[in-house]
């Protein structure tokens, strides 16, 4: 099979990219929030909604058999994509947030006790803070926070001191921050945590897009991500968990499909992974995610890597040419995600005017209030690029940004 290694070929597969917004060709730079979908994903979802639709795992009829096949086929695609050992380790959820909540509830129920602690970092998304805070409140445990430095990088030298008293029962950290766009040293953190016997969950919402993830090599206990940021549909996500942990964890939600036998006296639970998939799952979303992963496999890996390097270099150069611009998250492990402020200009004003020029940006706190406080700001602007963005779009973005800043000054 001929691999795709041409930007216009790639763009061709994403119908959303050819639209106009506010009378201008769309420049979609909000991929960190959600990505556009390739035609094959759209077609599969349409096909399922308009015909291949029967509830999975339940019936003997043809439609049910076909959706079940698509659903379980998607599980296999995900397993292969992140190199997990078995299908039992791949749980479908509604997204990163749901996966984190599942672990924060179920893991904590089994392993977190009064006086113990959960380790996070200062750079986490609210989705990787609040569920743990809630779990800690329930079990009388505390959050411990690994601080970040002035560039937003983890202060690794403080890690051992946070782990050494044996109180920390789990660490949950982002692979790549949705604000800083820097690849965190998770290998090093996992290694340190394991030295103290602490299991690690990686929030891979951004990481899964910008690096090839091998959970066996990483050796993390959990890895979670969302389908919609990986060119798949919304409402589908993944929890990877090592079997030894998933087996020891109690189910979180009860319902159909997650049971062995049910009587009013006692219910036994289904085996992994169904134990954690109560009720009718988003089987169309899962199949769509499987399709998105299949699409990614058709793009040349080297092209993706080189293209991102080109985008990052061009963007850094462009941003450096803007007067008074402060970039957050400076590192040589930078992905194509850039958060910044310019002087005292309000991020919302810039985002609003850029929208008028057809450019979709994110502005505000980006669900990471503690990180905003760390940098002493109440918001930032963010441009997050993807495999289908171009150098020309970056140039248009930089020029438009300068024009907008002039208007606002």
């Amino acid at each position, binding site marked *: 099979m001929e691999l795709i290694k041409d930007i216009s070929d790639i763009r061709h597969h994403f119908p959303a990219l050819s639209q106009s917004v506010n009378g201008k060709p769309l420049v979609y730079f909000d991929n960190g929030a959600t990505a556009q979908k390739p035609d094959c994903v759209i077609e599969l979802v349409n096909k399922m909604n308009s015909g291949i639709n029967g509830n999975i795992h339940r019936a003997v009829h043809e439609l049910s058999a076909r959706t079940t096949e698509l659903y379980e086929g998607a599980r296999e695609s995900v397993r292969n994509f992140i190199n997990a050992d078995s299908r039992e380790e791949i749980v479908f959820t509604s997204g990163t947030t749901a996966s984190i909540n599942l672990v924060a509830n179920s893991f904590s129920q089994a392993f977190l006790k009064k006086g113990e602690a959960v380790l996070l970092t200062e750079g986490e998304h609210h989705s990787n803070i609040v569920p743990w805070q809630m779990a800690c409140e329930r079990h009388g445990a505390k959050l411990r926070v690994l601080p970040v430095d002035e560039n937003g990088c983890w202060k690794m030298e403080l890690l051992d001191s946070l782990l050494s008293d044996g109180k920390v029962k789990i660490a949950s950290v982002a692979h790549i921050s949705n604000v800083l766009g820097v690849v965190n040293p998770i290998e090093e953190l996992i290694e340190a945590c394991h030295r103290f016997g602490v299991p690690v969950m990686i929030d891979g919402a951004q990481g899964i897009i910008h690096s090839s993830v091998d959970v066996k090599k990483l050796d993390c206990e959990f890895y979670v991500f969302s389908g919609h940021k990986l060119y798949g549909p919304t409402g589908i996500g993944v929890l990877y968990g090592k079997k030894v942990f998933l087996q020891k964890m109690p189910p979180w939600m009860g319902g159909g499909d997650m049971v062995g036998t049910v009587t009013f006296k006692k219910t036994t639970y289904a085996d992994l992974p169904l134990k954690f998939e109560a009720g009718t799952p988003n089987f169309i979303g899962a199949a769509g995610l499987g399709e998105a992963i299949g699409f990614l496999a058709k793009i040349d890996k080297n092209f993706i890597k080189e293209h991102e390097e080109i985008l990052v270099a061009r963007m850094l150069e462009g941003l450096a040419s803007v007067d008074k611009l402060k970039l957050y998250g400076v590192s040589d492990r930078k992905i194509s995600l850039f958060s910044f402020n310019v002087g005292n200009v309000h991020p*919302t004003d810039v985002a609003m005017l850029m929208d*008028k020029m057809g450019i979709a940006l994110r502005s505000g706190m980006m669900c990471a209030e503690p990180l905003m406080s760390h940098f002493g700001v109440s*918001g930032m602007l963010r441009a997050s690029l993807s495999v289908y963005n171009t150098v020309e779009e970056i140039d248009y973005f930089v020029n438009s940004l300068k024009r907008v800043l002039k208007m606002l000054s």
Partner: protein
Amino acid sequence: MTIKEAENQIIEEFSIFTDWLDKYEYLIELGKSLPIIKESSKSETNLIKGCQSKVWLAADYKDGKIYFTADSDAIITKGIISLLIRVFSGRAPQEIIDADLGFIKEIGLQDNLSPTRSNGLVSMIKQIKFYALAFSANK
């Protein structure tokens, strides 16, 4: 001048803009020239929280009329606020309660005032109407 007349005056002013750029440049100008609210009025109680930008709104009731002052940390929001103040400030409560704000759509700013933009303006209008109701009940 009635509220309706003030609205019409704004519609007239905006009718000369054919380009969105000019329109926003004008809003930015208005934002810069908005009389600043008293620093003491920028209190937690007068703060209307939008997800994206902050808006402060204070109201004074004198001789049967309500006088509004306001501010925001975002300049375009401030520009739109200044239009709202022009329309609403110095009016009797009942007139404010009855106003339908048709001018916003007329000058093409309805997008900025949709609840989905979460910039605090929708809450600000609600708050203005709320003040009007409160003062009319206290008469």
